């Protein structure tokens, strides 16, 4: 039986094309499945932002490994070798993914860790806020030089009774408030009073009082106890106030009552 289409020239051409393409397909080597998988593994990882950001070195190593497999494939090396190299490349891609996940997780961990410290501080602050404090000591400007925040030896001596008291009453919490007079900018004064309060706090810590028990706050020039228009008043306003928590079992030593 004869095919009618065989007489039409256009059909002849299309049959020829089909035949040709079949030949080409037959000539091109059958693709290696493992190499194809390694390629697609790599491509996926290389487009994953987490992997790119956190495991670029491993990704680079995987790329080199994949290149070895591609070269072996181009050089018509035996299937086993291409399979082997493709397997290595895929494992290296997996490694890059694992590294990326570890690094990303570590970043989250560090962020949380900082957050935890913050939450812990807040917890301590709320704990402190619940307590009632009373001022037991006011340290005048003899503690510091003008504009400075280093404790002077004479000032340190004034703190010894406080240290003794805190060592005996280990439940007592301490609040340290720094205050300044109104000379200078309020930002400068806030900063200075904060540094001075911190200096007292640091002294207590080096004297063996737990940092957990001490808060230090700079109040700036906003809470004067006297007028800022006379030098005597300003001197009174330059001070560090020490407040301790009141609780039934802790008794304030009489030396604190006097103030300084």
């Amino acid at each position: 039986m004869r095919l009618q289409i065989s007489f039409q020239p256009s059909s002849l051409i299309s049959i020829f094309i089909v035949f040709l393409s079949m030949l080409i397909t037959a000539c091109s080597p059958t693709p290696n499945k493992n190499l194809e998988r390694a390629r697609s593994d790599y491509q996926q990882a290389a487009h994953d932002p987490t992997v790119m950001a956190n495991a670029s070195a491993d990704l680079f190593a995987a790329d080199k490994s994949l290149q070895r497999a591609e070269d072996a494939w181009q050089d018509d090396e035996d299937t086993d070798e291409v399979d082997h190299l493709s397997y290595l490349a895929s494992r290296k891609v997996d490694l890059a993914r694992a590294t990326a996940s570890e690094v990303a997780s570590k970043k989250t961990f560090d962020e949380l860790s900082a957050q935890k410290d913050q939450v812990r501080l807040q917890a301590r602050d709320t704990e402190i806020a619940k307590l009632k404090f009373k001022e037991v000591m006011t340290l005048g400007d003899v503690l510091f030089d003008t504009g400075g925040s280093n404790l002077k030896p004479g000032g340190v001596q004034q703190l010894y009774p406080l240290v003794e008291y805190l060592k005996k009453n280990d439940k007592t919490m301490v609040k340290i408030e720094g205050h300044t007079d109104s000379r200078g900018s309020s930002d400068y004064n806030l900063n200075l009073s904060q540094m001075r309060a911190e200096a007292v706090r640091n002294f207590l810590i080096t004297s063996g009082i737990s940092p957990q028990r001490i808060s230090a706050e700079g109040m700036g020039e906003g809470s004067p106890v006297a007028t800022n228009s006379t030098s005597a008043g300003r001197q009174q306003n330059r001070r560090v106030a020490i407040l301790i928590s009141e609780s039934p079992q802790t008794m304030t030593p009489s030396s604190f009552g006097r103030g300084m």
Partner: protein
Amino acid sequence: MFTIKTFLRLGPSAALISLLLVGCASEPPKELLSQADVAIQNAERSGAAQYEPALLSSARTKLDQAHRQVDDDENEKGASLAEEAIAEANLANAKAKAVKQANETDEMKKAIEALKQETSR
């Protein structure tokens, strides 16, 4: 002149042949075998026995097989197996580390939640 020309003509091919010979006379892949050993030890230290037991035991098996191939003078097969053992051990190591890190991060999350609850009370 003649000798120099001959040398120039033969030199490169001689070098190529000697290179090929070196390539063919495959030595036992000692370097790879010891690398695989170290990689497996590292993975063990990261807790791969707990977190990636299948991968770790596959790496161990391949290293054993690599040693056997090398004993039988099948150095190329031994090298391939050692390479796979290294890749698997390194992967087991990285995966174990990733799991451990994820666990630590989870615990940190829980700790913060607990702290927050405590504070709000």
